[in-house]
């Protein structure tokens, strides 16, 4: 990591720890939402950004996680058990959703996963005996951790932040391990990967299962955060939103989802002054950004850093250009 990157990381961590102390309820709620959605986006970034498997179903896994936790807690199960069940369920279903990816890719896979998202939404809405249909599940309690109540917004925020830190560390470890290399190989050239002994089938399924289970983690934290869930929250809109977070932050960049989720959570709030026009402004901003920088904010930052370096060492850059000439 460069010096600049390290400074940025430390600054971000300090801000995440200290900022909520100066915020009121709604601000803390927004930050908690950021932490939760970042976890889901990190999962999608693994599936899509690293392993190159298009998924438009991440929102459905957030829903599955949220409903699993809400319903199990309502049935009297303790939060940690419900949490583990939610994550395992999403892992298993995500593994299953990976099978179509062994046959179809790109936009065809996007449609398969889109259909799956709709299917989950319909189950949540129509299977009233299980999910209470459009009435949703209300009165979801925030859990206690080691005797400490997480009922207060600030306490729950730190809990979400802690979970985010755990998830981020786990993912960071995985991505720097041979698995991370294998996932990138899957994205860049699956045929060659196969000829180098990579069991591309297993890695594809793993990418889906792990990415989806992180959607489950996010959902399991989301339910106690909002304390009321209903099927509409987990319709296609959420999946698109999560996809947007990954792309805006920078698909395949480790820190991309952190930034993407921040933009997605905060921008609508800042654009409130425009009143009814905020969605229009938001959409236009996204279109503009995609046109000038398809690699997302981190891609932009990397380009800027490279340009700076080039200015500093033009001779080295010229040599580099010489070498890369075909």
């Amino acid at each position, binding site marked *: 990591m460069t010096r600049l990157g390290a400074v940025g990381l430390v600054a971000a961590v300090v801000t995440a720890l200290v900022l909520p102390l100066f915020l009121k309820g709604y601000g803390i709620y927004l930050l908690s939402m950021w932490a939760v959605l970042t976890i889901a986006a990190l999962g999608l970034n693994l599936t899509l950004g690293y392993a190159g498997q298009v998924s438009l179903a991440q929102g459905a896994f957030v829903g599955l996680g949220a409903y699993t936790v809400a319903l199990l807690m309502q049935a009297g199960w303790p939060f940690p058990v419900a949490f583990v069940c939610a994550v395992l369920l999403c892992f298993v279903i995500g593994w299953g959703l990976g099978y179509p990816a062994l046959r179809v890719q790109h936009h065809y896979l996007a449609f398969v996963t889109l259909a799956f998202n709709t299917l989950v939404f319909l189950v949540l809405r129509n299977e009233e005996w299980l999910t209470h249909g459009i009435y949703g599940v209300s009165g979801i309690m925030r859990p206690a951790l080691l005797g400490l109540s997480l009922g207060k917004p600030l306490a729950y925020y730190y809990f979400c932040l802690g979970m985010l830190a755990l998830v981020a560390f786990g993912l960071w470890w995985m991505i720097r391990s041979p698995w991370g290399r294998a996932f990138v190989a899957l994205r860049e050239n699956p045929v060659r990967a196969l*000829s180098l002994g990579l069991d591309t089938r297993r890695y594809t399924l793993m990418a889906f299962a792990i990415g989806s289970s992180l959607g489950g983690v996010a959902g399991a934290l989301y339910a106690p955060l909002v304390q009321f869930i209903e099927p509409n929250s987990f319709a296609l809109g959420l999946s698109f939103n999560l996809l947007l977070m990954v792309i805006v932050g920078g698909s395949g960049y480790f820190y991309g989802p952190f930034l993407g989720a921040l933009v997605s959570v905060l921008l609508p709030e800042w654009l409130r002054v425009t009143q009814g026009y905020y969605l229009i402004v938001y959409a236009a901003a996204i279109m503009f950004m995609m046109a000038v920088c398809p690699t997302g904010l981190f891609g932009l930052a990397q380009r800027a850093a490279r340009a700076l370096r080039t200015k500093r060492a033009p001779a080295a850059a010229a040599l580099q250009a010489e070498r890369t000439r075909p």
Partner: protein
Amino acid sequence: MTPVLQVSNLRKSFGGITAVDGVSFEVREGEILGIIGPNGSGKSTLFNCVLGQLAPSDGEVRIDGKPTTGMRPCDLNRLGVSRTFQLLQVFPQLSVRDNLILAGQEHKGTMASRLFGAADAGLGGQAAQMIDFFRLAHVADEPAGSLSYGQQKLLDAAMAFMAGPRLVLLDEPAGGVNLTMLANLRERLQAYHREQKATFVVIEHQMEFVMALCTRVVVLAEGRIIAEGLPQDIRKNPVVIEAYLGH
């Protein structure tokens, strides 16, 4: 002694076209077998059938006497069969070093040890050796996509050798490589062959390269073997000259 690779009566049709039409040959331990033939004579299809990328319509492939027809490429690779591709196939966004580590990592340990173990899967040293051997040290940490074509060809070959394979199938290693780089590549291949006692099968159009490298040559035309023998004899064979220049 059992041949390293034994292909018997291999056939592959695509619809009405028979790309490989009953090909049989053997490759003995330590040999460098050249496969030559005009464009469309079925060389690459033959490779793809041997390596499990395509399912043959008929016939059998044996490696060390064991039937391997229908095995997946990744399982074959772990048996010690490695390949390079006709068109460049490196991972452009990974560094040269990571390309090499990737090429070896699936041969070590289990899925779990690859997740929880060292980031370089214990292959850092071997990758560094390979980088030196193929003279890629000055670009070792650059993304493979930024290398010149010839350097990527070298990397491609280096990747095929990373797991210490017994049998390497090289599909047009010299294609599009300039003369200086070509001499370098040939010398590296010969050095590797000498040091590791590996067996090579090489598809190539560049005649000088084949003649200098191979110990025996098989000539394919229209999916069939039309000649087989020592390089110097093949060069003079009227049937071969006819196949290349005729029609």
